[in-house]
């Protein structure tokens, strides 16, 4: 388990990094936290000709939290975002999700943006970005572009990132007032990728009826599956909503596959169970109550 040969680049400015990436083209791969890339290299499942280590590039580790949302830089570690008071205040869902990401040792090194670019449909952060309708800012020698989540995740382990591009940051927009979130998953072991998982965001109106309700499901499709269930919640008060029935609507929208850990049927069943739990608790949180 040793990687195949590659050229290592350690740029110290953003411009240098983008130049190297531009020259490397399709053979270039960015190294940030390395929590997915290094195992892929060691198992010779990936063989990029050029590794571009951006860890020395200054200014990429920012976590900017404000009323609009949270912008997370390319080198911001999972643990830093998880522990950021500003990020937690602006978007409690970030911390709720990050606590489900692998183990502390991996979170100390792995980056949020790296997880988004890796685009594993079983991972939590792509689901969070998709649920919130966030975006990823991509930079290349030719300029920058902001890609919405709905366009960013294009397939299992595939994103809209082009050769020569570096994912500079990701933006997680804040939710309106009277919103609540929850993220539940079932993993085989603590910290494993989820067999199934559901992130939910519920926003109430002034009469505490559901104004908006969405879920994002992991491990049940090629990309995070976002389902808007606002209409299924009905016109009554959120406290009286029939969350199991709403979750049924979510189940119908996912198309899981079976693998050695779980059958497709079980994943679909779990998605329903977890959607009901997550929606119920998100609605409680939106009313300012703890579950």
């Amino acid at each position, binding site marked *: *388990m*040793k*990687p*195949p*040969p590659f050229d290592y680049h350690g740029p110290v400015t953003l411009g240098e990094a983008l130049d190297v990436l531009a020259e490397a083209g399709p053979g270039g791969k960015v190294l940030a936290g390395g929590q997915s890339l290094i*195992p892929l290299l060691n*198992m*010779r499942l990936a063989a990029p000709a050029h590794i571009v280590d951006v860890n020395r590039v200054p200014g990429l580790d920012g976590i900017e939290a404000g009323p609009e949302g949270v912008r997370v830089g390319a080198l911001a570690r999972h643990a830093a975002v998880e522990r950021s008071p500003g990020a937690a205040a602006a978007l409690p869902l970030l911390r709720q999700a990050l606590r489900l990401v692998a183990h502390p040792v991996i979170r100390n090194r792995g980056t949020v943006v790296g997880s988004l670019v890796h685009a594993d449909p079983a991972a939590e952060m792509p689901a969070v970005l998709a649920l919130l309708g966030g975006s990823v800012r991509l930079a290349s020698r030719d300029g920058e572009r902001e890609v919405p989540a709905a366009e960013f995740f294009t397939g299992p382990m595939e994103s809209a990132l082009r050769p020569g591009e570096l994912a500079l940051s990701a933006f997680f927009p804040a939710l309106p007032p009277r919103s609540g979130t929850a993220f539940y998953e*079932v993993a*085989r*072991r*603590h*910290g*494993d990728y989820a*067999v199934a998982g559901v992130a939910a965001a519920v926003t109430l109106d002034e009469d505490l009826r559901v104004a908006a309700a969405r879920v994002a499901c992991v491990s049940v499709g090629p990309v995070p599956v976002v389902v808007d269930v606002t209409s299924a919640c009905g016109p009554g008060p959120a406290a009286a909503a029939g969350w199991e029935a709403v979750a049924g609507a979510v189940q119908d929208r996912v198309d899981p596959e079976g693998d*050695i*850990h*779980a*059958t497709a*049927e*079980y994943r679909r*069943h*779990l998605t329903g*169970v*977890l959607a009901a739990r997550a929606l119920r608790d998100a609605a409680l949180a939106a009313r300012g109550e703890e579950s």
Partner: protein
Amino acid sequence: MTTKLFGEPVRRREDDRLITGRGRYLDDLGEGALAAAFVRSPHAHARILDIDVSDAIDVEGLVAIYTWEDLPGALAEPLPLLIPHPALTHGRTAYPLAREIVRHVGEPVVMVVARDRYLAEDACALIRVDYEILKPVVGIEEAVRGVHLVHEDVPGNVGAHLVQEVAGPGGVTAREAIDAAPHTLEFRLDIERSACTPLEGKGVYARWDADDESLRVYSSTQTSTSVRMAIAAKLGLPLPKVEVIAPDVGGGFGVKIVHPWPEEVLVPWAARLLGREVKWTEDRREHFVSSSHERGQVQHVRAGFDDEGRVLGLDVEILHDHGAYTPYGIIVPIITSTQLLGPYKVGAYRVEFSSIYTNTVQVTPYRGAGRPQGVYCMERTMDRIAAHLGRDRTEVRAANFIQPDEFPYDQGLTFQDGRPLIYDSGDYPEALRLLKELIGWDSFPEERARAAAEGRRIGIGVGCYVEGTGVGPYEGGHVQVTSDGRVHVSTGLTSQGQGHETVFAQIAATELGVPIEKVSVVTGDTRRFGYAVGTFASRAAVMSGNAIALACRKVREKALRIAAEALEADPRDLEITDGMVHVAGVPSASIPLATVAVLSNPLRYAFDEEARRATQFAASGSDDRPPVAEGEEPGLEGRDYYSPIRSTFAAGMHAAIVETDPDTAEIRILRYAVVHDCGRLINPMIVEGQIHGGVAQGVGGALYEKMAYDEHGQLLNASFMDFLMPYATEVPHIETAHLETPSPLNPLGIKGAGEAGVIPVSAVIASAVEDAEGITITRMPISPSDLYALRQDR
């Protein structure tokens, strides 16, 4: 400083070194050695048509490429079949490098030696092997159909077939007893594969001394003495020219008792051929696909019993999947079939097994070594009987127990050592009483009702086992007291983390009356002790522990004799306390053991003040006797061996309370209780550690681990990402109670403890999940997805 250390929870002396990064594991050695890597078969069953190395030879730093064609003499022959058995009529072993046919994914085909491991793997990636794909045989059912064969000359894929029968009262056979019984049950059970997965994989590092024509080999093995003999035989070297050392070994659990692994003969061979140091360190993927697995069996059970649940007849047919090769014989199914009976006396017993070839990784003992399957079978049977009769599960077990006054108890079977299966001692009713008290068995119905009122679903399970430990043929110990008063203990068997440096020192310190700080222990180094069997079968404490105690007693006797002369006392009046030999009750009449060691070795030359006392003009010897009397040896040292008449039988009982989520089908262990009896305890803390580790592995086998082979024989989960070894977060707190029924078979009264913890866990968890769910469990392990499917089928 007390010298009564036997039985005390002495802290492990090796841990400071091991947990602060100062261990010397195989890959810590041989910096600068050439690295070996292997091209392994990507196919489960194929014929090698051509091996093309032309692209690889351009890799910078490449030193050598070897295939089977390059192997000389005995090295070109199949690896040894270590434990032959008359029933193993079609035993087959692999070649060190595949010859013509590969029979499982991961079988080594080409060996590459290069300047470092990176370059060796680069070269491996450039070697093209052309294969003709043959039909793979995967799964027990496919194998027993016998349509496709793993070995052309093994009809029906059956390597071995063995029947053992024990008639009941009046010579009634098991089948007759079942037919005549008031109640009968018949069912099938399945248990999946798992594997040892030690944190350190295998590894070999060899140094050839061309001037001395000698070889030193370090191997991450459970038997350095036998690896040494295998290397000498395979390489045609005189035994005294080969040294094998097991350095710190990061876990074994059985896989490293198998030997010689292909790499254990190929790496030393290449080192000699190249005149360079060569090292191979197994990586995790290699370990999954090219070492050993265990556990996979299908069992067909018929039981006949009376109204009390007493088993009148038991008939078990076992299909045992042993993978592609049988280097370790049929030890695993023999143990399953003979240890299945556990603490019970059944009226009549018939057991039949077929050991079957498949195109998968070979099966050799993994901690528990066939017992988890046997206990699973017997304990599932007990639960079935209890359910059938509507009786409490512990009552049915108690009705079948061998009673304390029935020992020694002969089960009428032949055990894995070829000797009669006779239990030496035990107290099963007391163990069950302790267990029920520990887990709160009798009050569980109320606990269940309380949980149900909260919408929670919980269940309780129980499992009992008896474990034959301390198998022969022998181990030895050597004990030397040097003139500085230090005690040097060596034994030939190896250590893989068991705590031998602590427990063997406890034994020596107690026997010799010296502080434990003065005692050092060396294991697994053929330079220090050349005769040994190895560390497996829960045998190290029983075998080497007793051998070391016997060697210490020889040393003590000699020390007292010499001291008696010096003190002009009767040796029978002498004691040794804190390293001082003294007249009992007269502390002033004493002589340090260090001085006794000086006096034990008559010297001509004085090299220090202590030595001066033993020189020829200083020592007070008798002129009419030679300085070393006839029958004596210089030095204060002793060597002895322990060779038991047969195994000693430890026992234990476990109980668990589990919770199953009514919605997600997740399974959580709320409580886990263990009552354990391994005779006299040398160190209760180390025994508990062994139990904890065993239960952790048992939890893995019960709820998480399997070998996910697809129909092509590809292992789909050959990494720690998909092979779900439990983390600390998945292993419950373990509550333990000890029972001590000493073994009458050995001087220390001890029984083995190494494997115990793992043995009943699958049976216990199956019992508890079944109790929580009201669904009969017949396949283990069980995942939430499996449980969900069972609920859907209900």
